[in-house]
Structures are given as C-alpha cells and as structure tokens.
C-alpha cells in the first residue's frame, strides 16, 4: 500500500484558453492534515473539483487509495470515500437537523417510502459519529455556521469518508468555534482519516497542518512539511513578491497629540453595545477588536448613522454631533468601509467608475445633469492613485479580485476627503499582496492626518496595524491595549 492516499500527477485543466491548472502535483499522506494554500484564483477550487469529480481534469492522473483514475465522477469519488465540505453549500437550510443528517443515507438506500422514525434513528447514529448534541427538530437555517459545518462533517463521516476536504472552513467561525473544529480535526486524524484543509490564514495552518502545498497561478510552487516553512517564505510563495518590513509603524511621528481628537465617544450606547468611551487623534490608527457578536460591527454602523445611538455623545473635532443618518456622518467627515463588501460596500454589476463616484454625485452635477467626463477623470485618478488592478475602470466592479474590490470601496470614501475613516474587517477575503497594500495605504493616510478606526477580529492584523486597540466583549468595552502590550497573545486573552 502506497504511503499516499491521494497522489495527483500533472493535472491540467483549462477553460476556454485560460489555464486554470498547469501540471499540478498534489500528494497527501495517509492520516495527515495537509494544507492547500494560495490566493484567490490560484486554482485551489479547480483542483478540488477535479478530485471530487465535479469537473474532471483535461490531462494528468489522480491516484486515490491505490487506484489510478484518468477522471473521476462525483459518484465514484463519493464511493471511494472522498467527501468535500464546502463553506455553506453542504446543507439544506430549510430542512431540519434530522432531515439533513439522514438524507444521504435515505437516498442511497433507495428507499421509496419516507419513514420518520427510521430517519430519526439514522440521524442519531450520524450525530454519534462526532458526539454532537443538537436538537433534531431545529431548522438548519437557524443554526450558526459552525453547527452547519459539523452536520456536514458528521454526515460525511457516516458515509464512510476516508478523505475529507474542508474548503475554507474557518472563514465564518468565531475563535472558539475554530478551536472546536480543530479538536475534531485532530480527533479524526487520530482515527486515521486524511484531511485536505484549504485556507489562507497562516496562523491556522501552523496550528493544524502537518504539511502544505502552495499554489500560485494554477501551478504548484511549494510542497513540504509545514513546520519548516517560514512566514516570509510563505508570503513569498503565495504572492511571488517580497514585502519589506511592515511592522515599522513610526507611530509617534504620525499621531498629532497636540490637537483636538478627531473623534471622541463618551459613554456611547446603541443596539448591541453599551458604554463605549474612547478617542482617536488625527494620524492615529485605533483598533476595535472583539469576537463575532462583541458589538464592534454595531458600533461602526452606529458611528456611520446606519443604526441609531441610544445614549452617550459623539464629539467630532471638538464639536458635539448627532449622527442619525449616513448624510449626517459624511457631513461630519466620517466614512465607513463596511463589513460585507459584496452586499454593503459595492454595487457589483455597476462600473468601477460609478462605484467610486456615487458618493460625490452632487459635486459632479453641473446644472441639472451629471458631468460624466469629470466623473470619469476623478475615477481614473483614484484607480491610479491606489493601484486598483484593472484594464478599464468602466468595467463592472465584480470583475475585480477581492483585494481590488476593497480598494474601490476605499477610493469611494477617500474621495469624500474624510477626517475619520472607519474600516470594518478591512482585509476579510483579501489576498496577502493586496492586504499589505491596504496596510501601507492606511499608514500613509494616517500620516496625512486621517484618524483611522479598524474594527477587526484578525488579531495579527490588529497587533500589526494599529497603534492602540479598544477591546470589546459581549457589547461592552472591556479595555484598551496599546504600545508594547499590543501582541496577539494579549489580545487573545483579552477578547475571550
């Protein structure tokens, strides 16, 4: 028996002339957790689709459990014990937990008559594989993402999975839920399962993986044990670029201590948070950190007039202000890069140009109509200024990668010349390269006197980017961490 459960050799796949995969090799040992990393669009999902049989490769072979396949089909793949857990597509949201757990077995038994009692027994057995404790009659859509994932995993295990592919499983999970998932993964590994873990979060990879394969532009660029891979090398393989030391903050030169704070919150309360007080000086980058549900997003939205404050005061540059609408916020120089860029930050099918200039429509109105040459010129300037990678800024914004989309959201708000820039989860779903670009840009803006507020649950990001951070837990501000104290370890302790 071979040492490898999965051995892909020279897998190629192209879509209409675009080479999505070029001679990709991917080998996973029996009983190991193997990490598959790479930026968006590097071919991670394409190789997974080949392995799971949804989109067979053009050439190359996939050897699984000793058998060589020229191409796999979904049913063969599942029969052989390959199971893929997608982020949220693996469950039926409008069915109950019981139905979700039992459905595969019921279908594969080719049972014609639906039997509630029998189904319940199957569901209980499936739950037992992971030791889950869920109410079988709950609708799955009401459950947190973590539970949905566990349901999908339990179902996969009951279907006699030998090889589990987890596609970015931690994206929507809180830190605690990630811990739980990792425990389960270690447990499964101990039982002899092999796991392919797809991710782009470096700290998680170090925590859970034995070995790693990094892909870039459809090719395998690195494969080897996880432990010997340094962070610099990782970034290098991921992006093909090297980044100079980003930890160099130069905080003290930047922060304007002698002026009035750009924004000061006094005992501010709103839906989802209460009693938050802090101030931000011009030139300062302040974090707001806490887990999902800690109230950081609600705080950001309240400062931007999306939600209403219920108590306390907001003072902008020494003047107390009431913010009850987005117009109020922008008038006072507040801008927000929202948490969900796809639904809140951007009009996806609309041009990059219009996405950038939408906040300044009034400025571009000449007489009665919009002055579109001026609009186009301004947008072109911004695209150049902050390096949005695109051939044409009149293309829909959805043609851009995540990082470049985020730059468009930034450009939109920077064009209003804000005094206070709030960013909620500024680098979620953003490639490493674009992430560093955004960090550099924010530092640069702060140097020019902008007050920057960064709400994030990415502790590495907070510790690297921010001069100081406000910690929130359960809607309450529990303290501030600054300077030398601002480390990932301290933050981890503080947010729990």
């Amino acid at each position, binding site marked *: 028996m071979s040492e490898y459960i999965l051995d892909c050799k020279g897998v190629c796949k192209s879509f209409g002339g675009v080479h999505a995969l070029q001679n990709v090799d991917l080998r996973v040992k029996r009983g190991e957790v193997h990490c598959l990393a790479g930026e968006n669009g590097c071919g991670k999902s394409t190789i997974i689709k080949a392995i799971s049989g949804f989109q067979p490769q053009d050439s190359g072979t996939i050897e699984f459990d000793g058998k060589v396949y020229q191409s796999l089909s979904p049913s063969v793949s599942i029969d052989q014990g390959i199971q893929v857990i997608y982020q949220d597509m693996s469950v039926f949201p409008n069915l109950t937990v019981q139905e979700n757990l039992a459905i595969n077995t019921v279908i594969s038994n080719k049972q014609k008559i639906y039997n509630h009692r029998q189904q319940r027994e199957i569901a209980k057995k499936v739950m037992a594989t992971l030791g889950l404790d869920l109410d079988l009659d709950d609708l799955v859509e009401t459950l947190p993402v973590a539970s949905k994932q566990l349901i999908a995993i339990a179902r996969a295990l009951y279907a006699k999975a030998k090889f589990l592919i987890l596609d970015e499983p931690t994206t929507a999970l809180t830190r605690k839920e990630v811990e739980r998932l990792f425990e389960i993964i270690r447990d499964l590994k101990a039982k002899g399962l092999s796991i392919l873990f797809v991710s782009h979060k470096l700290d998680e990879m170090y925590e859970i993986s034995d070995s790693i394969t990094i892909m870039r532009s459809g090719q395998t660029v690195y494969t080897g044990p996880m432990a010997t891979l340094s962070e610099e090398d990782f970034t290098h393989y991921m992006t093909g670029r090297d980044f100079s030391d980003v930890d160099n903050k130069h905080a003290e030169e930047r922060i304007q201590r002698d002026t009035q704070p750009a924004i000061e919150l006094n005992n501010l309360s709103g839906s989802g948070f209460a009693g938050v007080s802090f101030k931000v000086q011009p030139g300062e980058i302040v974090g707001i950190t806490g887990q999902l549900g800690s109230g950081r997003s609600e705080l950001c939205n309240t400062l931007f007039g999306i939600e209403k404050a219920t108590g306390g005061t907001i003072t902008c540059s020494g003047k107390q202000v009431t913010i009850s609408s987005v117009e109020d916020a922008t008038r006072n120089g507040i801008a927000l890069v929202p948490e969900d860029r796809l639904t809140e*930050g951007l009009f996806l099918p609309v041009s990059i140009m219009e996405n950038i200039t939408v906040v300044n429509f009034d400025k571009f109105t000449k007489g009665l109509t919009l002055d579109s040459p001026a609009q186009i010129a301004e947008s072109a300037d911004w695209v150049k200024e902050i390096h949005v990678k695109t051939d044409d800024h*009149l293309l829909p914004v959805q043609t851009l990668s995540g990082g470049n989309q985020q730059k468009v959201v930034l450009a939109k708000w920077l064009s209003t010349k804000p005094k206070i820039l709030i960013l909620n989860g500024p680098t979620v779903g953003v490639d490493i390269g674009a992430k560093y670009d955004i960090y550099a840009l924010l530092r640069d803006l702060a140097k020019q006197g902008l007050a920057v507020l960064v709400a994030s649950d990415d502790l590495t990001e907070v510790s690297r980017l921010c001069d100081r951070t406000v910690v929130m837990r359960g809607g309450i501000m529990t303290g501030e961490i600054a300077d030398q104290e601002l480390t990932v370890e301290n933050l981890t302790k503080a947010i729990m």
Partner: protein
Amino acid sequence: MATAKKLKINSDFLRMLVILVVIIIAATITSGSNFFSVISFQTMAKQLTEYGLMSIALSMAMITGGIDLSTVYIANLCGAIASLTISAIAPEGQILGIIFACILALALGLCCGALNGFLVSVVGVPPMLATLGTYELFSGITIVLSNGQSIQVIPQFTVFANVEILGIPLPFIVFILMAVIFSILLGKTAFGRRMHLVGVNPKASRFAGINNEKTIIMAYMLGGLLCSIAGLISLSRVSSVKADFGSSYVMMTILIAVLGGCNPAGGWGEIPGVATAVLVLQAISQWLTAVPWINGYYRQALYGILLLGFMTYKFYRDKNMGRR
C-alpha cells in the same frame, strides 16, 4: 471601451429601433397604403400616448427594484376627479376652471404615487402587494365617485386630444416630450443614477449615503404624475372615464417595460428603449388591424410570443456574458 459602455446602455434602445424599422417595412410591404396613411398614423399616435406614459411610470418603479400595478387606476381616478371638478365649477367650459381641474388631477396623481412610494420604502410592503392594494383602493374610490357608471366630461374638454400641430396630434407630442424629459432625468442626472443604484442593491446604496426612501418615493411620485397626465388625455380622447377603463394596459405596460430593456429585478433600464418599445407594440397592433388576412384575435398570442422570445434571448445572452 468607452464606446462599448455607451453601447451597453443603449443596446436595448438600438435593438428596439431596429425591430421598429423592420416592422414598419414589413407592414408597408404587406399592407401598403392601409398601414402607411396619415389617418392610420394619427390613430396610432393618439392611442399609444396613454399606455406609453404609464409604461414610463412603470419602468421607473421597475428600475428601483419594484413594480407598479396601480398605474391605470391612478389615471382613472385622476380622470374622474378632473371630470367631476369640471362639471362642478366649469360646466360651460370656462378655461380657468378646466386648468384648475387639471392641476388638481396632477396633484392627486403625485399624491397617489407618494402613497405607493411610502408603502414600498418606509412601511416596507413588497412593491407588488403595495401597488396591488392601492390599485384596489384607487379603483374603489373611482367606483364610489362614479356610482359604478362611466362619468361623461363636457364636450369642450375633448378638444385637447384632437388638437394637431403640423399634423401631429397633441397627445403624441406630450408623449414624446415626456419620453425626452424622463430619458434625461433617468439617464443623465444624479437622481436618475441614484434610482438605478437603489434598484441594483438597496443595502449598498444606504451605505453609500443614498436616501433610499426619498429616492423611491420620488420615483413613484413622478410615476403618479405621468399616470395622471395619461388619465387626462384619455378623458379628453374618449370623453368619459370609468373605474376599470383600460385595465388591460396594466399587463401591457409590464410587457413594454421589459421589452424596452428594464430588468424586472431592478437596476437596469433606460427610457429611450421603453419609449421605442411603446412604438413597436403600437405598430404591431396597427399592422394586425391593417392586414386583412390576419385575424385581430391573434394579437394577444403574438404579444405573448414576443415577450417569451425576448426573455429567452435575454436570458441566454446574460448567461453567456456571465460565463465570459
């Protein structure tokens, strides 16, 4: 690439223009003088104005991501109010009284539209249900006002629909004027672009500082205004108004808006395309009347085929564009 962008906006317009020309040529060949006479053109021009204006009103609702089923009933209510006011204060056709009645009707149209917009944006009723409700309400009020009968207007008022300038009927001039005004309003102004963006993604527009409520209410109000103009023209043309007059226009306006390039899901659509689609539909209908060997009963079936064919074509085009 800039030209491509321009083409994209106007492609629905161009397509409709091509279809219009093809139909006119085909009609001229098959029915000759029957179709292409001055009288034929004038009947055509008068008829299309009413549902033409309502189609523009509906298109605006559709662009913001909604729909307006109450257009015809706003028109009838405004027509009824105008007619009753004229009978009350200007039974002899005094011009001031007529002007007052018209202004009253237009203001009522704005209010009806405001109610629709308020229900949709502030209360948050799904547009289809909100306007279905106001459709019942407006038509109910008209029934009460008219005791379920048709209301006759004084003969002097019917003059307006028959005025011709250089041989072109006044109603048609009104339609062209409104089409131009609303093309500019929707295509070239900040308000028009905001309306589109609200339709694309209301959440993102809120985060971009657009006042969704105001924008949606304005869109429905302008729609109400257009409907009341349509109501006045129809009152003048047929010299009477009834609560359920022209109820078949409701579906027809939806057909026109979609043919003209409005996306039923909101966000896309321009008035030039819609206005041309109005002409296309009227031309087809005229053609059917002019050609002796096609029975007029086929009209509805043909409209159905047209809409389904167009939607299928659009679906495939969008799908292919998405893959690229």
